[in-house]
């Protein structure tokens, strides 16, 4: 049954084509059915495929399906081929299923948008590209999907194109991610130059054979790929685009900027893990990027007023965890957290979406409050998701995935005490901003009136996701809690298990204990500031230093400010001053010179007979002189 694989990207693509070409002629009922249906089908197919993969795994737990020959020149032979192994399988499953749920949700959310067909077309195109990215058997095809999702994110962020702000956010997202892509491309060139292929599996083998551990080429390749990854996954230093990306419709934020696309970087690094095993320094860089991002973004999340921006920063910070995991070689932990994060973060955004809808496009949390009774379903699902995000022990998926990462940040051979500390502190921050959001929106006095309640199309997916956010973690539990590891076990066919944990490392249980403490501390702080003593939080930002720090964090540590001055403005400045093209003036200058000569020479043609005669005589004299004295 695996040979149905091609259908999984093909179905949404077909949906995109139909909606794109005939969208204007379709009825408003048909559009969501078509849009969500195509993705639903592809989700079904992927479940089917996954099932058969589990039941009768192909040889070596990997299945390749060559569709057609693509780029063939000299030593380069790249087919359009799909590669299915546990890693891509899990990613694909999560992506297709979550996408389906979000499409269903969108059917409700976008029901009164006149451009619905365009919306679903873009969304379908996104799913197709994302799946291509995941299933690509070579890096060029992966790049195709990679750029495809980037494009869709650009299109969807700027979906409501009439408002220039959205357009700006879309362009920013596209360009910043493409900055990363540039580095990724160069990485590809390097790999092809030195390993002679772009087929991922062959690359891995050859790299392992040809490059010694710590070889500079491996390091270079690792860092270049990392550049691409941080771009796509909004990690330092390229995280600045994600918060602005919230300008798009909320389902978009949920699907692209929370659940799926932004984790492409994680997938890329996991996919290319061999390179990083050969380049410890590059891997360390990954860990550092993750660690730094998760704290910085955590602080920013604490200071946001816009609910979606707050969630966006939390996404950045959670992906930071995944990078940290990758950085310490806990590959499967990263993927595990990706999965759980996909569930609860998508859910959080969907919830936020419903809130915003019902409050008539109000996004400022300080204008919300007391929605607990108004929107019970939203409240409970949102609460569950929030707990999962914070990692409330035992009952939520986040606990297991994040806990694993935190522990291995120290325990794995590549681990460091520093990483562990940062991770735990991150847990504190996470709890703090999560419950800050919850308290601000659902508790306290109602500050604005609820206009409409979400329909079934919107609530049902949320409930499903809520369930997943709770049970999703039980596929991998610590030793002291039943020690299940279906998930990791399955993944280990594609990704190596964590390198032998160091002797003098703390127990998993101890780590989890600390995590729980940090979580409680964060909860306490949030409770103190927003329920017990709301005025206290204002008092914090009153003094100059407090205000400054607040603005600094809120503005994402002033990165945009910096980048504008370093890169954006110089280019725009040059483009503006040189719009008339300085080079041209060289040539026009020559033309002017000729005209000058013309006017000069013209003066000699006086029309006077004797002057002409003089010229002749003079010429004769000169030439006689020349022949005689030269």
């Amino acid at each position, binding site marked *: 049954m695996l040979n149905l694989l091609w259908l999984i990207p093909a179905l949404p693509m077909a949906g995109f084509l139909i909606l794109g070409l005939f969208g204007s002629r379709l009825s408003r009922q048909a559009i969501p059915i078509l849009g969500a249906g195509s993705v639903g089908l592809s989700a079904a197919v992927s479940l089917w495929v996954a099932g058969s993969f589990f039941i009768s795994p192909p040889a070596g737990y990997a299945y390749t399906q060559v569709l057609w020959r693509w780029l063939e020149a000299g030593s380069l032979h790249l087919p359009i081929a799909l590669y299915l192994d546990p890693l891509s399988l899990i990613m694909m499953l999560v992506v297709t299923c979550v996408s389906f749920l979000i499409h269903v949700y969108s059917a409700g959310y976008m029901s009164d948008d006149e451009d619905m067909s365009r919306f679903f077309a873009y969304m379908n195109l996104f799913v197709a590209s994302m799946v291509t990215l995941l299933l690509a058997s070579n890096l060029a095809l992966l790049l195709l999907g990679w750029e495809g999702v980037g494009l869709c994110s650009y299109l969807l962020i700027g979906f409501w194109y009439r408002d220039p702000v959205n357009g700006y956010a879309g362009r920013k997202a596209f360009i910043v991610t493409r900055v990363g892509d540039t580095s990724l491309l160069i990485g590809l060139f390097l790999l092809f130059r030195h390993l002679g292929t772009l087929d991922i599996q062959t690359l891995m083998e050859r790299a392992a054979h040809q490059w010694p551990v710590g070889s500079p080429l491996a390091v270079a390749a690792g860092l270049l790929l990392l550049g691409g990854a941080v771009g796509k996954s909004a990690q330092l230093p390229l995280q600045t685009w994600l918060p602005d990306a919230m300008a798009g419709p909320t389902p978009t934020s949920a699907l692209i900027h929370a659940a799926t696309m932004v984790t492409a970087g994680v997938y890329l690094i996991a996919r290319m893990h061999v390179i990083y095993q050969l380049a410890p320094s590059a891997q360390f860089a990954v860990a550092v990027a993750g660690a730094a991002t998760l704290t910085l973004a955590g602080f920013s999340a604490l200071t946001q007023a816009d609910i979606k921006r707050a969630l966006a920063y939390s996404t950045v910070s959670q992906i930071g965890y995944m990078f940290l995991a990758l950085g310490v070689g806990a590959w499967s932990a990263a993927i595990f957290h990706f999965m759980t994060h996909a569930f609860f973060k998508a859910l959080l955004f969907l919830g936020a979406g419903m809130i915003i809808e019902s409050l008539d496009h109000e996004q400022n949390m300080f204008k919300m409050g007391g929605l607990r009774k108004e929107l019970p379903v939203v409240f409970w699902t949102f609460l569950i998701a929030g707990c999962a995000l914070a990692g409330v022990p035992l009952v939520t998926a986040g606990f297991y995935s994040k806990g694993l990462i935190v522990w291995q940040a120290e325990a794995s051979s590549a681990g460091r005490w520093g990483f562990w500390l940062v991770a735990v502190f991150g847990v504190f921050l996470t709890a703090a901003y999560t419950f800050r959001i919850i308290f601000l929106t659902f508790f306290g006095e109602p500050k604005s009136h609820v206009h409409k309640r979400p329909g079934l199309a919107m609530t049902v997916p949320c409930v499903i996701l809520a369930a997943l956010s709770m049970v999703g973690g039980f596929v991998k539990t610590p030793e002291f809690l039943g020690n299940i590891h279906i998930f990791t076990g399955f993944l280990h066919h594609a990704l190596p298990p964590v390198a032998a944990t160091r002797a003098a490392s703390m127990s998993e249980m101890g780590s989890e204990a600390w995590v729980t403490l940090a979580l409680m501390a964060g909860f306490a702080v949030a409770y103190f500031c927003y329920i017990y003593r709301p005025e206290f939080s204002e008092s914090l930002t009153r003094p100059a230093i407090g205000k400054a720090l607040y603005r600094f964090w809120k503005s994402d540590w002033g990165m945009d400010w910096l980048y504008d001055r370093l890169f954006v403005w110089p280019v725009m400045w040059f483009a503006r001053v040189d719009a008339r093209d300085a080079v041209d003036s060289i040539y026009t200058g020559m033309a002017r010179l*000729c*005209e000058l*000569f*013309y006017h000069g*020479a*013209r003066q*000699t*043609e006086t*029309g006077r*007979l004797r*002057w*002409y*005669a003089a*010229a*002749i*005589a*003079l*010429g*004769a004299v*000169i*030439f*006689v002189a*020349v*022949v*005689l004295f*030269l």
Partner: protein
Amino acid sequence: MPSSDLIALLPLLVVAGTSVVVMLAIAIHRSHRLTSLLTLIGLACAFASLWVARTLTPTEASPLLEVDSYALFFLGLILAATFVVVILSYDYLEKQDVNREEFYVLLLVASLGSSVLILSAHFVSFFLGLELLSVALYALSAYVFTRERPLEAGIKYLVLAAGSAAFLLFGMALVYARLGTMGFPQIGALLSGGDQLLKDPLILAGMALIVTGVGFKLALVPFHMWTPDVYEGAPAPVTAYVATVSKGAMFALLVRFFYQTRGVTLGPVFLVFSLIAIASMLVGNLLALLQSNVKRILAYSSIAHLGYLLVAFLAGGRWAAQAVAFYLVAYFITTLGAFGVVTVLSSGERDADALEDYRGLFWRRPWLAGVFALMLFSLAGIPLTAGFVGKFFLLTAGVSASLWNLVIILVVTSVIGLFYYLRVIVVLFATEEPAAEVAAALPPLSASGGSALLALTALLVWLGVDPAFMLSVIQRAVLSLKGL
């Protein structure tokens, strides 16, 4: 003088005879049509007689004149050119209210002079031919004396031509004084003989003065100043004649003289010619750059074109000779065509020489404008025209002698030249409507003039697309030239 020489000189005799006949005919009965017809017939006979003369080539009809196939080729060229000029003049004179008939006598005498120039192998015949040509041209350029400009052109041309002739003569005298002979072959023999002669001041000075005289006729810088005024002032057909026949004959002589006498091999003389060539190419093209009078534009461009020719001339050897010959052919066709258009557009009051007269001509007279455009493209050296092939041959000659500096300057200046040709073409094809009176003043196109233009165009394209035949003719002709 043996009769064989007379046969060899038949073309000259026919031309001379025709002039006499025409003169008598006028005396008997004034008829513009008749005289022009007689002239044409005479020219045709002269042209035909070339084949008779060819049977005897190469021969020296007296020490003065050398009849070789080189000479015959150029004779044919100028006779054909004169033929066309006569046709054009007929239309032109029809519009003028002066005695028309004598025009043709003068034209024939001028052609006789040019023929002598082409044949001459001796200072005396050189001088004779030159003066025959000049004196006739003074009268021709001032022929329409009812207007001011022709008169002005005439007097300017007369004074300057006479003056430069004096320089020429003095130069000849100096050379003669040193060598004791005036025949080109003998001079060549002596110069190639004695080495100290090559540095002799008398000879060098003499050569320089001869260059002055020649340079004036060819309108080379710095002897060029008369050109625009005479071109503008003289009646359009005469201008065409001055631009083609007189220059062509003189250039033929230049090649013969300096190749046979090895004069060009004298270092200083070579240097002088190089300077003249560079100056002509630059000044000619620059002067025309923003000029708004078509006749003057063509005058300046002719200065530049003679400069190009000099580059090939300096290259020396067979490449140069055939390049020069071919380029002259192309240049004749093109210039006649261009002035032909000017002629047929001219009226009784004034010649159509203002750029404005041509605005949007293409949309009213597509064929006429097309011909003019083709001629301009040929001058600019664009493919499908003889000018392109001609320029290609010139460059080939220049490169074959690796005269890189000259060749590069040729290329650059010819691009400057391109600019003003394009300016004229732009006006021809301008889409905005012209001033009403200009549109109204378009004279009807006569059959004879039209057919002449058509023939020229056909020739232009033929030579531009398939130059092989003409090239073989030229090769047979020029390779007979002594001193190659």
